[in-house]
């Protein structure tokens, strides 16, 4: 399973990367894209939206199913990756290169509650 050590993860199969400016990039894991199959639609949230931890903020649809993307922490959406709307298959090709949105956490310490690579690997292989 492809689970980079330097990222954080959620039980709902998102990955999170803390950027130098303190914002956090969010995408779906390689395991998630593999489960979904060929992805044909990505809807990222709009910048400026305030969201709660665990809130559904976007949608990924494959040929076979639709799946929500959640916010791992409370905060404000600072960017959505609109490029994915035109090339959703990019998520299958490179899940960790395909960030869907960036969030500015209300409280940076909330990130500590996310799963590390080892914990996510255990969860994903169950």
């Amino acid at each position: 399973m492809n689970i980079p050590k330097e990222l954080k993860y959620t039980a709902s199969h998102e990955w999170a990367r803390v950027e130098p400016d303190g914002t956090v990039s969010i995408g779906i894991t390689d395991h998630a894209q593999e489960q979904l199959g060929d992805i044909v639609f990505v809807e990222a949230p709009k910048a400026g939206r305030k969201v709660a931890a665990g809130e559904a903020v976007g949608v990924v649809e494959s040929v076979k199913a639709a799946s929500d993307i959640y916010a791992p922490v409370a905060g404000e959406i600072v960017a959505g990756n609109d490029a994915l709307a035109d090339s959703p298959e990019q998520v299958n090709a490179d899940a960790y290169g395909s960030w869907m949105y960036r969030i500015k956490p209300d409280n940076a310490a909330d990130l500590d509650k996310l799963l590390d690579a080892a914990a996510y690997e255990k969860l994903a292989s169950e």
Partner: protein
Amino acid sequence: MLKTTPLNAVHREAGARMVDFGGWDMPVNYGSQVEEHHAVRRDAGIFDVSHMRVVDLEGGGVREFLRFALANDVAKLALPGKALYSCLLNDAGGVIDDLIAYHFRDDFFRLVVNAGTAEGDIQWLHSLNALAGHGVSIRPREDLAMVAVQGPNAREKFWRAFDETKPATEALGLFQAARLGDDIMVARTGYTGEDGFEVVFPASDAESIWRSVVGQGVRPCGLGARDTLRLEAGMNLYGQDMDAAVSPLDAGLAWTVDLKAPRPFFGRKALEARGQQQDFLGLVLVDKGGVLRAHQKVLAEGGEGEITSGTFSPTLGVSIALARLPRGTAPGATVRVVVRDRELAARVVKPPFVRNGQSLVG
């Protein structure tokens, strides 16, 4: 405990993603569902459909029995090998199953029925047999397996693998089958909208037949591609587009209900009394904003309808669906589909969407 086909180990060896499909452990894809789909539209693919059940019916009264049991009329099947698509109806005119009936001899017909409904179908046939009194022998053939080889190059590649079958199968027309010995049947039928064969053979030969066909460059395809292919081809899926509570007239299957002869087939009275209440048509999503899926609500001029099957069409690059719509909704109309919290515009079309690799919906 899931049921398995004789090809289960072959699928696993090929790295298939397996799913529970109506109690059967079946391959949904071998990597990319979309690439498998394209292989069938452009070249050739092979599907394991051994979960479907072959039921052989024998006896002097078998034709009369089927004229009573089926909504389509097997009287049309004059030549040996000709096949007919039909629904099996309950007394309320709802669809118990859809099937293909093959005529081999006047005392021998074969049905191929869906996996999930097979046990119920067989019980139903037994009770109709008792009712009709033709003394037909009903023999489910769990000893047989079945593959579908589909695509523009499917027949050519199948013949390359089994050239001895070519003389007997070359001249087969659409919806026609040949029997090669007692237990092998090659039929020019399918569920993809492409040319090809469905091949029935002893379960013990499944692995070698599969490997021989794949050895000719025919791509293994899972149930995922099978679903997008059949939807593009405008073919119904039992349990999704119709079931025991739905009349074939409301599922776009009026063409399979033969009311010409004064033939008292089971379910006819209820069907005629109720008539057609809804139109069953295709939708092509116009707006961006998601993928059409089963059970989404459709807002049309004459009222509300519902999507029964929806997906993203790999051939057309847009989302398509089959839907039950208010009576009077016509191809060309624009309707709105409720996708999550939005209403998206969709164009009403007459299925199929794709046939023989070509778009039919512009």
